[in-house]
């Protein structure tokens, strides 16, 4: 069984970001980029499953500008067998990514797809769900534990939901998105980084895959959140009620 893992190249989580002066987005020039932390967890889970003998191959997939290849190489260094890079110079929104993914699934025929629950740059939390919808596959999101039964072709997934933990049973093939507590991603060691240089990364463009990546969404403006105003100490309950009524308009 093949496992496909989606990997996104995002601004590194430790970097202090700022908005571009023209407000069209976040400054990504000269900023450190790395693999999305949830994607690392997704890849780690796929590798664990392969190492348990339940899968034959782990394919890492990334979409975006040419530099995505660096992120894919890190994925290959962690242990993925091969990579697929879909090169797109314009921004890709979750639905576009999901459509391209569907095409790749038709070409590769994996039995399981892992994605991170969301990317830390846009926090959309949509792609995994859309992929499952387009493919009409079962999905389990926010996975904190995954157990595969190869014979019965069933995945038992524990999900972290607001009320606690929910356990789902999915027939394969299925889509799983990963949450923080699923596992601890491994380090890419130096020897593995070297081995990764010879692993294959296949390149596609959206045109080759016959996917239309025009989007119905357009980012109009990006601004910083308003600075927190200083608190005001009120002297009496009446003053508090008056402020809540007339200034904050909450009562």
């Amino acid at each position, binding site marked *: 069984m093949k496992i496909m893992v989606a990997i996104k190249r995002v601004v*590194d989580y430790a970097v202090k970001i700022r908005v571009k002066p023209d407000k069209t987005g976040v400054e990504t020039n000269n900023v450190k980029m790395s693999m999305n932390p949830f994607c690392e967890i997704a890849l780690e889970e796929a590798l664990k499953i392969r190492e348990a003998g339940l899968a034959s191959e782990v394919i890492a997939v990334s979409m975006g500008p040419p530099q995505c290849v660096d992120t894919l190489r890190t994925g290959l260094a962690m242990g993925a067998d091969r990579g697929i890079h879909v090169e797109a110079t314009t921004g890709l929104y979750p639905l576009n990514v999901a459509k391209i993914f569907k095409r790749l699934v038709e070409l590769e025929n994996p039995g399981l797809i892992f994605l991170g629950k969301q990317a830390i740059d846009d926090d959309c939390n949509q792609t995994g769900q859309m992929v499952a919808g387009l493919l009409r596959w079962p999905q389990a999101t926010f996975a904190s534990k995954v157990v595969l039964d190869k014979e019965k072709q069933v995945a038992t997934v524990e999900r972290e939901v607001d009320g606690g933990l929910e356990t789902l049973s999915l027939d394969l093939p299925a889509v799983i998105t990963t949450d923080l507590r699923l596992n601890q991603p491994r380090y890419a060691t130096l020897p593995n980084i*070297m081995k990764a240089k010879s692993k294959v990364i296949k390149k596609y463009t959206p045109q080759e895959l016959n996917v239309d990546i025009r989007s119905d969404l357009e980012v109009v403006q990006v601004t910083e959140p308003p600075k927190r105003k200083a608190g005001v100490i009120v002297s009496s309950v009446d003053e508090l009620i008056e402020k809540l009524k007339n200034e904050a308009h909450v009562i």
Partner: protein
Amino acid sequence: MHRFLSISLKSNSLRRHHSSLSLYTHLSNPLNSANGSSYAHHHFYQNPTSQFGFHPFFSSGYSSLTGFYTNPTGFYFMKPPFRSFSSETDRESMEYDVLIVGAGPAGLSAGIRFKQLCRENNVDLSVCVVEKGPEVGAHILSGNVFEPRALDELLPHWKQEEAPISVPVSSDKFCYLTKDRAVLLPSPFHNRGNYVISLSQLVRWMGMKAEELGVEIYPGFSASEVLYDTNNKVIGIGTNDMGIAKDGSKKDTFQHGVELRGRLTLLAEGCRGSLSEKIIKNYKLRELRPAQHQTYALGIKEVWEVDESKHKPGVVLHTVGWPLDHKTYGGSFLYHMKDRQIAIGLVVALNYHNPFLNPYEEFQKLKHHPAIKPLLEGGTVLQYGARTLNEGGFQSIPYPVFPGGAIIGCSAGFLNVPKIKGTHTAMKSGMLAAEAAFGVFNEGLNMETYWDTLQNSWVWEELHKARNYRPAFEYGLVPGMAISALEHYILKGRSPFTLKHGKPDHEATEVALLHSPIQYPKPDGVLSFDVPTSLHRSNTNHEHDQPAHLRLRDPKIPELVNLPDYAGPESRYCPARVYEYIPDEKSQLKLQINAQNCLHCKACDIKDPKQNIEWTVPEGGGGPGYSVM
């Protein structure tokens, strides 16, 4: 065509044989501490599978401290008192012809030059650069007014190849500051033909150039130990084990470090490099020259984005005087880069006397000066950082060659103090070492050639001319400036005398009794900031669940000496607030080490009065994330 690794899980039979001799001198082992300090811990985890029983240094062979021997080249070397033979049987090892530690200007210049020579001579030799930062350039911080002399020699077409060097110096001013005024003085600098750059950006570009030539660069891996063979020759380095928890146990993600072997090893770790310091001590490289001790300064820097109207690319300003007093050497710099960015910083020499001095707070004060404040108002801080730099110059350069390799760049110390430039000399030293290394492989020459070519190069001439400026300030600011003027205008570098440095920096700190605490103004959040806010701007991070990389040789000294005698100076000079004295349950002040904040500046390693703090390298990929510094 790079040489492919040999992933052989080999145990070196030579080393095993030697380790079995285990001459453990129990008597005066300064590294062994009664309660099994974390220093010993660290070594334990380098060798978990040893068959020689459980004790901290089971795999080390100690030889006597005395005993000269001649190595094949005819030079006398003393046996290092501490040898670490790993009895690791499952550490992988990779071999290269040249191994370079540190992807900075010196390291990358060496890599580039070596590969250029390989191409010119149709020879295929492998070069590997290992770098502790998460990417090339992430740990690079410098002023920087760049003198392109070395780059012109290394990559003459840098302009066509779009090096990030585009802002020529347009004006060069020098001021003496008092609390309220700025007095213009004749500028001792000659920056015409130089450029205002971000060194972090330039190093990234150099990294690309190096990779194009076939240099293999591996960021995210820290070189934590030097590997020796049975003849005390350096054969490479070992990277840090990764995935060790704070208490020393192995986590699920544990990965052994890797041995990177080089036929030649070049150490390019920058100022106060952790491995370089060990090598200098082991091979007594300072005594060999002979050289004085190294002296240092701490530079704290911010990059601001200011109003278009206030920004003039290429403007260079240096100041002396306020906020530092006449007994403290140092000064500030303010350079206008491109894209409305300006670099502003304060450099404080670390031989200051007052233990209450807080270089970070002095820098915050500086930004409020009436001559500087207007420029920054309305701007935003993009990045913050700090790093120590060498001020010892000519007198402090150690003999830079050791069996198996050489030291290049600021790890040896080629900074020209009156020019305040070290990048061009670091690069040239890397190039000369690469040429010597190529001679070793291609013509059977000796690494000592590096020492010879260094002494015949413009680096030596420049540093020799500049040697008296800094030591002159031992006598105070005014005598220092007077002697500097003498050197500069009258003697023009032909002085018959060579001034000596004063006490080593850590010995210069006077006891707290002789001084009174300095009251620093509270940060206003617009021009001046508190440390956590600034630290956030340095993009610093470390995996929190790892052993603290700042080791105390004796864990009792902070509370027994640093705090009562010197009022805990580490809580003041550290620009990242790593060291804090916090009251414990019994209301006793105890030292807390917030290793995760560390900016890798090395100030603590230099300035700790009893030299009790040892900076060791944390897990690779951590530390600051500079991109425009």
